[in-house]
C-alpha cells in the first residue's frame, strides 16, 4: 500500500521569507502523480501544485515550487516570498496514474506566517 509521510507537524516563516515543507512517500509504482493541497481554516482544500512522476522537471506555480527526487521518494514544497494568506494546513498527496484514482494524503503540516 502507498503511504505518504509529512514529518513536520508545524512550521513557521516570516512574511516575505522562504519556507520548505517536506514530504516522503512509499510506492512500488513507477508512474504516479504527486500533489500539494492547501487547506485554510475555512476548510476547503485547494490544489497548490502537481507533479507527474515521469517528468524530471520540477513543477512551478508562481511562488510555489517543488523539489521532486524520484529515487529518494521525496517531494518537498518551497514557498517563496511568503504571504499572510499562505497560512494554512498543507497536505502532500499521492495518486496512481493508472487504476484507482484515490488520493493518499499525509497528515499535514500547519504553516504559520508571522508578520
Amino acid at each position, binding site marked *: 500500500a502507498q503511504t505518504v509521510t509529512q514529518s513536520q507537524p508545524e512550521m513557521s516563516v516570516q512574511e516575505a521569507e522562504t519556507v520548505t515543507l517536506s514530504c516522503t512517500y512509499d510506492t512500488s509504482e513507477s508512474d504516479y502523480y504527486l500533489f500539494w493541497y492547501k487547506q485554510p481554516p475555512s476548510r476547503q*482544500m485547494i490544489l497548490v501544485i*502537481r507533479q507527474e512522476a515521469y517528468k524530471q522537471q520540477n513543477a512551478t506555480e508562481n511562488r510555489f515550487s517543488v523539489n521532486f527526487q524520484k529515487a529518494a521518494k521525496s517531494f518537498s514544497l518551497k514557498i517563496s516570498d511568503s504571504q499572510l494568506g499562505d497560512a494554512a494546513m498543507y*497536505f502532500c498527496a499521492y495518486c496512481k496514474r493508472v487504476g*484507482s*484514482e484515490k*488520493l493518499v494524503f499525509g497528515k499535514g503540516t500547519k504553516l504559520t506566517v508571522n508578520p
Partner: protein
Amino acid sequence: GAGVSQSPRYKVAKRGQDVALRCDPISGHVSLFWYQQALGQGPEFLTYFQNEAQLDKSGLPSDRFFAERPEGSVSTLKIQRTQQEDSAVYLCASGKGWGRARNEQFFGPGTRLTVL
C-alpha cells in the same frame, strides 16, 4: 455551480441516528470521491465513483456506510446507526476523469458531522 457544494455544512446527530450527506460535483465531472477527515488528520479515502458506477469502496469503514450516485451527478453518503467515532469532516471531491488533468480533484467545503 462553479465549484463542488456539500450539504449540510454541519450536522449533529445522536448516537444511533441515520444521516445523509449530499455532494453536488462540478457540472460535467465524471469522477466523484468521498473522504473522511478526522480532527488534525489528513483526509482518508472512503469511496469513488466514475459516473454512476462505484468503482472502489475499499475505504468504507463498515457496512453502516453506504454511498450512491444514481444518475452520475449528485452523490449521497449515508451513515446508519451513527457512532461517536463517525464524528469527522466528510469531504467530497470531483474530477474530470479524463485528459491530462484526469487525476486532479476539486474539493467541496465538507460536512462536519458530530455524533453525541
